[in-house]
């Protein structure tokens, strides 16, 4: 199977800051002391938002039985939202012994017949990779029969973590879809949004602004994405990576293959949103556009400030501790600062070098970058007099014990905190948390313990 991607190549990403000085890139997980998802999950996160494509998982039931319909990646696709459906061959012992290839073929036939998708992604998993089912051949044959892209995705869980899976997904798109169709027309302001999955509609908080500026989102990887659009993504003027560091490989390769420059931006909070809009305009290089963008930013910031006034009064003098992962360690910190809340500490345990640098930049010299937030956050709450803890559910106990307000920052959140409008959602949630008596009442000692 010469067409298979070489996993090793993707472990060593030259555009990752940490790879310039580490002897071994992205290390192997430690048995009994590992958390986080697998490569298959990473691939799934990156590709499933294409709602006009069917996503068929060739593996045993855990892979998709436990994971379908878990991410609130919204779509405007008018057809049936295939993102929120689960398709799996559910391989059995019989398939493991005698091969699951025939079953896979029939599964593809059934999906093509019953759901008329614009493409079918076929994901290998640990078990089917191990038994050596030939996805490439089966997909190729099916593609000829149904005249839609049938794309093998080789990111079985055991090759690595989520980031690697995302990279492999990006490479799969480059190999099978990007550049296979020409757009109906092009504009000088065509961009691709990369690593934006439109979770809870985050993307829709700022795409109307781009549209107003005359910037066209040609394709996305993959929020509210369409197969046709990603096929024509090679004609964009600019790739904008939103948050996801894992897709740097994708944009770097797009630059090599099609000469498309890329920038990495965040749309969390006021300053970052404004900076992102301006950076996009500047990268597109049109003086007029830049001027329009400045005016739009001014208008939006003024509107936001007006809406934030009542919150600002409430938040004055409030201090927060943030315990989350990756780019959120600084992007949410920035958003909190935009609301007038002092961020006294943030976690950088799993963050990349670049994320760490950014966190330092936002928090300043006095801010604490927590390496081991589980142990550090409780004493810091007292030391710094924090009023608010933003963290994953596991830290709720810490907040209760210290009797301070708590907000769950996880992506399972049902509300978008993206861009200007999302900041108001965040402000409202923080206000509600600060005003909620539950954090002092629920942890109260029992009358018989006093």
């Amino acid at each position, binding site marked *: 199977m010469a067409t298979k991607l070489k996993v090793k190549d993707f472990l060593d990403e030259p555009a990752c800051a940490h790879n310039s000085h580490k002897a071994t890139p992205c290390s192997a997980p430690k048995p009994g002391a590992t958390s986080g998802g697998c490569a298959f999950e990473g691939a799934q996160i990156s590709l499933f938002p294409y709602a006009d494509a069917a996503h068929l998982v060739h593996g045993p*039931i*855990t892979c998709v039985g*436990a994971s379908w319909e878990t991410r609130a990646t919204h779509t405007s696709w008018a057809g049936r939202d295939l993102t929120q459906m689960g398709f799996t061959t559910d391989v059995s012992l019989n398939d493991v012994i005698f091969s699951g290839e025939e079953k896979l073929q029939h599964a593809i036939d059934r999906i093509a017949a019953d759901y008329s998708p614009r493409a079918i992604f076929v994901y290998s998993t640990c078990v089917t990779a191990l038994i050596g089912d030939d996805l490439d051949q089966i997909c190729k044959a099916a593609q000829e029969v149904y005249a839609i892209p049938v794309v093998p995705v080789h990111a079985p869980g055991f090759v690595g973590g989520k980031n690697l899976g995302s990279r492999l997904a990006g490479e799969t798109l480059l190999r099978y879809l990007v550049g296979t169709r020409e757009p109906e027309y092009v504009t000088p302001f065509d961009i691709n949004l990369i690593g934006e999955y439109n979770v809870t509609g985050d993307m829709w908080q700022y795409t109307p602004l781009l549209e107003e500026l005359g910037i066209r989102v040609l394709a996305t990887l993959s929020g509210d994405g369409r197969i046709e659009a990603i096929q024509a993504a090679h004609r964009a003027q600019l790739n904008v990576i939103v948050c996801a560091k894992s897709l740097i490989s994708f944009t770097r390769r797009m630059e090599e293959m099609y000469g498309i420059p890329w920038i990495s931006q965040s749309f969390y909070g006021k300053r970052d949103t404004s900076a992102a809009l301006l950076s996009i305009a500047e990268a597109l290089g049109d003086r007029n556009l830049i001027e329009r963008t400045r005016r739009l930013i001014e208008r939006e910031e003024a509107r936001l400030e007006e809406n934030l006034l009542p919150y600002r009064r409430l938040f004055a003098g409030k201090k927060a501790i943030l315990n989350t992962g990756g780019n959120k360690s600084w992007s949410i910190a920035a958003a909190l600062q935009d609301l007038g809340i002092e961020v006294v500490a943030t976690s950088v345990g799993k963050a990349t070098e670049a994320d760490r640098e950014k966190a330092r930049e936002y928090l300043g010299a006095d801010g604490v970058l927590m390496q081991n937030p589980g142990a550090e956050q409780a004493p810091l709450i007292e030391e710094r007099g924090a009023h608010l803890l933003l963290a994953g559910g596991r830290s709720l106990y810490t907040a209760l014990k210290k009797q301070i307000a708590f907000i769950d920052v996880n992506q399972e959140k049902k509300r978008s905190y993206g861009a200007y409008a999302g900041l108001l959602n965040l402000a409202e949630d923080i206000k509600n948390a600060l005003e909620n008596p539950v954090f002092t009442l629920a942890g109260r000692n029992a009358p018989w313990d006093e």
Partner: protein
Amino acid sequence: MGRVEKNNPPLQINPIKLSQPMGATLAFLGVDRCMPLLHGGQGCASFTKVYFTRHFNEPIALQTTAVTDVVAVLDGGDYSIVEAVKNVSSKVYSEKGGPALIGLYTSGLPETKGDDIQRVAKQVDSPLVYVNTPDYSGGLESGWALTCTALINQICRSTTDINPKKAVLLPHVSMQPLEVERIKEFIALFGYEVLALPDLSTSLDGHLGEKQAALSSGGIEVAQIESLADAALVLSVGESMRPCGEALQGKNPHMRWHHFSHLGGLIATDALTQVLLRESGTKTPPASVRRWRKRLQDAMLDTHFSLGQTGFAVVAEPDQLASLCRTLYEAGGRVQYAVSPTDSAVLEHVEAEHVIVGDLASLDGKEGDYSVLVGNFHCASMAHRLGKGYVTRGFPNWEEVGNQLKDDLLYAGSAFFLCECANTATEQREEHRSDMRFK
């Protein structure tokens, strides 16, 4: 009761099936201070952990041997399992110390390449129970039951002694924590000290602990499993739990073992009560039991009008399916379709027009026959799309909170369940009527 339809489609579309290792995870979480250790790729554990965390709204203790592609080729489990046990034992502590038990079980990955976990388990010093649960066989129920059987076979000591006051409950996987607790309390009313294996009622019952525990935060203790076999009375609930009852009976020939398919509705609860009266030598049950029976009788009559005109589709694991369908049937609920993710002997006895082994797509095109859908979170979008009433039951329920506090069993729980279904059906009819008016 209809014939059981078993199709053999090449794929699952919108699956309701859950894997064996997921069932094993839950079973180990019902043992106090246990660390479930899933031998497989890191994703198997990660997906499972996130899944149950969202269902229970509780942290889930779970570790992985994190088998990689290279390890998969070179290692037979000797490195990854031994190393994982070492890391778990040395690094994970709860308030009461390190793990009292490591629960080692497999996903499909190591089973495909043929790791011999029994052999590797012998190289480990820590207390450990192993069980083979590849996710290409069985399902949630079998994973739970295999683990329960392994706990009995590998920990429980054989004896011929009997403690006449001791009873053991063997609950099936779909029983929520409060249901397990209510049954324990029910049996206790007849003078028994009751243990449940596994026992989620003291671990995943959603209690506010002192501190975030890294291990399971409750459940039956290992020492209690060791000395389980002197129980006078063993009650297994659910077809999937029959082998566990057999295994426990094998540890002590004097033990009296009774099996129940389920404990939903009037007739099943009567049967349990009769057994408990007989075994405990009591003439009449306690006042609260008698009172709740009367309330259930009344609830059956109060709900029969709504339920009798309502077609249901019920989606659940086989043992829960048997329970829910029977409870509805007793008050006239017309279950048109009962859908189970896996096959089971109990499906032959499910009270429904049609019993299907399949996925949610097996209900496609049948929406004319039912107006209320009883099933898990994945049924929600289907119910909304089709304008059906919707009662959330089974794994997962990510839409609502309070899952561990749901109780559909015995006299009391059945009464609440019937009322909820009848109200949902009435509400659905009202909405449908107002839809018609506006058209």
